[in-house]
């Protein structure tokens, strides 16, 4: 129950921070998607198996609060979680430099994919609109660079927070096993 409540709190905190804090406090044109960062942090710290159902729930809540339809964020987060898990297993993420580089790549890929999914599933879906919007998104170098630097900074806050919570959960589970 404690484990459930802790993970639920993380999900809700990320959603509220995104919806009602970050997007209002920072008036810049490049605000990072915290949910994508949480997916990366979870996969890196706890692995796919332990966190997949929570990632689906995170996607569902993103659809509830941010999207017109239910499904796009569930689809995106499931796919992205698998991608992160697949790639990180093939590289040594524990090594300081390669780990840092890999996380940076995940953040960049996550941000781009998130935007592509957003454009694909919101509003009127047409190839012309998608190519036009994506062209505009990639054309703005400031948006791409600052957005990803900002996302990197947020990621390390989220990572240390999630890592702390997950370690606490593991310790709690170990204690329970010993008591039993």
């Amino acid at each position, binding site marked *: 129950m404690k484990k459930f409540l802790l993970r639920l709190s993380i999900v*809700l905190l990320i959603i509220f921070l995104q919806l*009602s804090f970050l997007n209002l406090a920072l008036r810049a*044109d490049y605000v990072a998607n915290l949910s994508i960062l949480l997916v990366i942090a979870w996969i890196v710290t706890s692995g796919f198996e332990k966190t997949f159902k929570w990632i689906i729930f995170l996607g569902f809540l993103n659809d509830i*609060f941010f999207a017109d339809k*239910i499904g796009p964020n569930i689809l995106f987060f*499931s796919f992205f979680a698998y991608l992160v898990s697949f790639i990180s297993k093939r590289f040594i993420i524990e090594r300081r430099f390669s780990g840092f580089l890999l996380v940076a790549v995940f953040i960049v890929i996550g941000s781009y994919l998130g935007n592509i999914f957003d454009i694909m599933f919101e509003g009127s879906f047409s190839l012309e609109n998608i190519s036009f*919007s994506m062209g505009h998104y990639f054309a703005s170098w400031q948006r791409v660079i600052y957005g990803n630097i900002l996302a990197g900074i947020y990621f390390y806050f989220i990572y240390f927070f999630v890592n702390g919570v997950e370690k606490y959960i593991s310790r709690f589970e170990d204690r329970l096993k010993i008591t039993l």
Partner: protein
Amino acid sequence: MPGKFVSKKIFKVTVICFLAIGLIIFNPHNLFSGLRNFFMIVTLPAQKVFSSSAIKMASFGEAVTSIGKIRKENKYLIEENLRLRAEGAKFGEAVAENEMLRNQLNILPKDKFEIESANVIGRDIYNNNDWILIDRGESSGIKKGMPVIVSEGVLIGRVEEVFPSSAKVIFISNPLMNTNVETLETGAVGLAKGNYGLGIIMDLVLQTDSLKVGDKVMTSDISQNIPRGLFIGEIKEVSPVRNDLFQKAIISSPVDFLKLRFVFIIKNS
């Protein structure tokens, strides 16, 4: 064994992806609207706490960053004031025209329409200036389609989705919103529509109509649910396509959508 593990993972992801695609295609809106309402009601207090903290933080940040600029700006403003006073006499005609436009704009809301004020408590995740969440909903008499303005009578969007105590407002720059408009100077009529966060486009303007940079764009009386005479913005760029039946223009809105804190909903338009 690893092979088995990977296939199990792929199987899980594939099942979830198919389910999600099914939900997107069939889009059972009614199935989830109750759930969406429930989440919106339950989380409204938390959203209000977070949004008020965000606004305080943003105001504090603005105050801190502006201290250094004030002295520099003050010097500049004194010089600018002298220059403008000298130039003021030249613009008597423009002032009169401006006064006339102001009067036309002031015909608008306050005394004529029933207006509900609302705080902004949430914003679009991708910051494409597409939508905001406000703290007024069904309980305050808000309905889908109601126009949303800022205090100066500038149209910024319309209510797209209503929850019991909150509502989602899409901006005029959202592709879902189309508004009939006309220019104040020449009476050229067209359709203002969003373009994926890239701004507002005035489309479907006949080649015979005249469009100039700087023309003021207002809502026309054939806009559904949106009253006539709400200011939208000024024409920033005209792009006539000679071989096309219609011409297009880019409208620049006077509103900074990222800085919106309060909005007004016209309830009896």
